[in-house]
């Protein structure tokens, strides 16, 4: 039975990271850097987006993404990496959690603590970002605030599923939780979002 070799399954066709400067990284990173550029760097945007959603501000997200990608580069072994995207997201996720533990421990382990997240904690930060300035509608604003207000354990599962399209198994591996927990956290995240949006709708229409 002819099947894909393990080392290469799941690897997407190489995509140059920068369209305007093809080979840009390859020049700076000979040898191993070339396969790192082809396999891992295409997922850097996804890595930044995840860091930004986990940390909820631009500055920390940039620092953590940089730290994670440098770390990924040190550990990278192109020949046994069968899912570079999930792998890079795992490194970013772990770096973000380490940062939260050291600097904002209050945000962690809040799965059962409704109080901390009952107010939109990142409201002030949301307003700083250029993306928010172009938000088209109240619905868009409310939804993004509601997702930001989810406890980080729910937010990560939700973002990995809805934005990165990871399978439950991949999410379980990235977040190091059982698949049943992935399913229940997603379910609870969606319930919370539905409730939050239902609450805010009248206020949004009035303003």
């Amino acid at each position, binding site marked *: *039975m002819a099947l894909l070799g393990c080392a290469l399954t799941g690897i997407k066709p190489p995509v140059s990271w920068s369209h305007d400067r093809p080979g840009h*990284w390859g020049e700076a990173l000979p*040898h191993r850097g070339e396969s790192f550029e082809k396999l891992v760097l295409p997922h850097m945007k996804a890595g930044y987006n995840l860091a930004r959603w986990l940390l909820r501000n631009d500055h920390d997200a940039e620092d953590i*993404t940089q730290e994670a990608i440098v770390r990924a580069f040190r550990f990278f072994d192109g020949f*046994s990496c069968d899912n570079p995207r999930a792998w890079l997201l795992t490194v970013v996720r772990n770096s973000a959690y380490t940062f939260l533990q050291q600097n904002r421990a209050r945000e962690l382990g809040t799965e059962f603590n409704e109080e901390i997240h009952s107010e939109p904690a990142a409201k002030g930060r949301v307003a700083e970002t250029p993306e928010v300035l172009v938000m088209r509608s109240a619905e868009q604003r409310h*939804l993004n605030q509601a997702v930001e207000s989810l406890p980080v354990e729910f937010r990560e599962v939700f973002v990995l599923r809805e934005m990165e399209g990871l399978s439950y198994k991949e999410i379980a591996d990235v977040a190091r939780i059982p698949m049943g927990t992935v399913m229940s956290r997603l379910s609870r995240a969606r319930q919370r979002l539905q409730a939050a949006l239902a609450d805010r709708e009248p206020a949004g229409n009035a303003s």
Partner: protein
Amino acid sequence: MSCSETRRLIDAYLDSELDLRGALELEAHIARCPGCGAEEHGLRELQASVRANLIRYALPPQLAARLHEALGAEEPAASAVSEEKCPVAAMAVRPMRRPWKWAALAPAAAAALLVVAAPRLWQPRSEASVADAVIAAHVRSLLANHLTDVASSDQHTVKPWFQGKLDYSVAVTDWAEQGYPLAGGRLDYVEDTAAAALVYRRAQHVVNLFVWPSKRIGNEPLQHLSRRGYSAYCWAKDGMHYWAVSDLNEAELLKFVELVRRQG
């Protein structure tokens, strides 16, 4: 399917994580249950809104520049290839360094690997679909609470259970002493063929061993693949197909596979 079962599985259904049979049962339920139908409708609306409205934060240009600089500075120190495998269970462990000459050989090795692997990319569609079907059957057994039809660690209970349900005989062995206790058996379908699914446990993990008659004569060598985070080994022996599927790591699954292959 009951309302509580529907509510438990509805997210997996919307995320396309349920198998066809589970999805059909769930659809049949929400078609006749207004409460669960409304739940499904609400979740679909949320999903549509999320896809349209959730911000995807763009990589800041200054970060790209910083990274370029940082990785450029890394290169001399990191010219040795890490022996750690990419999957990040081992992330915390400092990698061992190989002599630099291995790093120089690496691109050639990668090219050789591609040449070897490339013809396999054009495998017949039906064989890829077997892999998908087997992994879907494994996922279904985990998600839909339908791991075993006959739950027993006794091979003398499980083997006779299959008789009368299958027109072939399946060897059933409990590998508890080797660390893979038998949990039971289940009737499953792969490629429109009734297959025996033998269920084993390894700590918190489940191994499904699917066995069904091969349409081709002869043996086929052991093959490995991984897909969607699952690991699978398949081979054919004495007119039977064997597929072992699990989320176990490759080495532990291979150990199990070797036990099965040695038994006959």
